[in-house]
Every structure is written in structure tokens, then in C-alpha cells.
């Protein structure tokens, strides 16, 4: 199982802030997980990369590139560019 988190605009777009899911067969990295999630429907597709807004991904609380590995037990978070400070 992996834990997947969504924040801010993305959380609202996909309608959930957090879920647990079994790592789908063949998914080994962030790009693969993103592609899998985008197949869930138009809202998921647009929120996670099909729309105009950029998406950042953190694995175990560190921002990573699409080729970063995802393994069982990881925490993966999707969110828009940050706007704090």
C-alpha cells in the first residue's frame, strides 16, 4: 500500500485529501503513478497534469522529479506550486 495526499486546489479538484491504495501493477515511479491516477476520469486527468496548472509531487515529503521511484509504503503527495510566506 501507498499513501497518497492531495493539497489545496488539487485536493478540491479530485474531491479528497488522502487515500491509501495498492501500488498498481507496473507502476514503479512518479510518472507511472500520475498516469494511473489520471485514468480515473476527466477531473483527475485535468488536476494531475492534463490542465494548464503545474503540479508538484513529493515522495516521503521531498519534492522529486517524475522519474523518482515509488515503492510500497511510500507517502506520495500532489500539490500546486506553493504560495506561502
Amino acid at each position, binding site marked *: 500500500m501507498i499513501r497518497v*495526499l492531495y*493539497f489545496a486546489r488539487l485536493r478540491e479538484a479530485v474531491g479528497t485529501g488522502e487515500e491509501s491504495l495498492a501500488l498498481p501493477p507496473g507502476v514503479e515511479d512518479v510518472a507511472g503513478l500520475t498516469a494511473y491516477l489520471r485514468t480515473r476520469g476527466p477531473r483527475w486527468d485535468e488536476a494531475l497534469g492534463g490542465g494548464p496548472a503545474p503540479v508538484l509531487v513529493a515522495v516521503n*515529503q521531498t519534492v522529486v522529479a517524475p522519474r523518482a521511484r515509488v515503492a510500497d509504503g511510500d507517502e506520495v*503527495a500532489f500539490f*500546486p506550486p506553493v*504560495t506561502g510566506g
Partner: protein
Amino acid sequence: MRVQVRVQEQPFDAGAEVEAIARGDAGTGAVVSFVGRVRADTADAPGGPVSRLTLEHYPGMTEKALSAIVAEAQTRWELRAVTVIHRVGALAPGEAIVLAAVAGAHRAAAFAACEFIVDRLKTRAPFWKRERTAQGERWVEARAEDAQAAGRWD
């Protein structure tokens, strides 16, 4: 070095933190601080004056990201103390959102480190602002200037 990183819903007293950061340390010659506040009368706010700001964050990663930024500042400059406090939740215009205070022996390092921490925080710490105006609520867009400012340090 004394490091203090806090993420909290409650307001903080920026003045008290600036007073406290170098208390008792006769090796500190310079304290530079930045306080970011909620502006109401933003000329660039599409929906008119902001009546409330709500800050969402990523608990767990937030503290880690802030600590990493402070740690990087320490490798770049000789510092004696750093305090970073960031609020989350609902804030009103005029309230302080963030404090970054740096104490050092000399001012050049304190100024540079303080600006570095704020620039990095604005592009790397997982906070998201939502503004309420008369026209409703909207997520604040990331600013190109912030990415540019942060890029200076790469």
C-alpha cells in the same frame, strides 16, 4: 547555532522574537528580520480588498522543508541563531503570516541569509494561500517574481 522553526495556528509576537533571538549572546552584532503580513488593499487583487486569508499546509513536510532551508543557510553563511515561524489557518488583514529572523556576527551575512530563507520559503515550503474577497474565495497564484528571486541563490 540556535534554530527555532515553528508552524502554528496562533498569532506570534514578531517583536518579542526579534528581541529574544540574540538575548544573552554577546557574539551577535547584527539581527536582521523579515515579517510578512496579510495585505488588504492589494492593487493587484482581482476580487477587490482581501477580507480573510486562509493558509493550508502539508503537516510533517512543512517543518522538514523549513528546517532544510535553515540548514542550507547555515552552510552558506556564519550564523549564530535563526528563528522561522509560519502561521496556518485563518488570518485577517494586517496580521503577520511569517517571521524569519537571523542573528550573526556581521550584518552582510545576516541580511543575505534572511533574504535567502524568505526567498526559498516562498518557493519550497508547502503552504498554499486562499484569499476571500467580496467576490468569493480563490487560491492565490504562484508569482513569477518569487521563482525569480529564489533562482538568484542557485
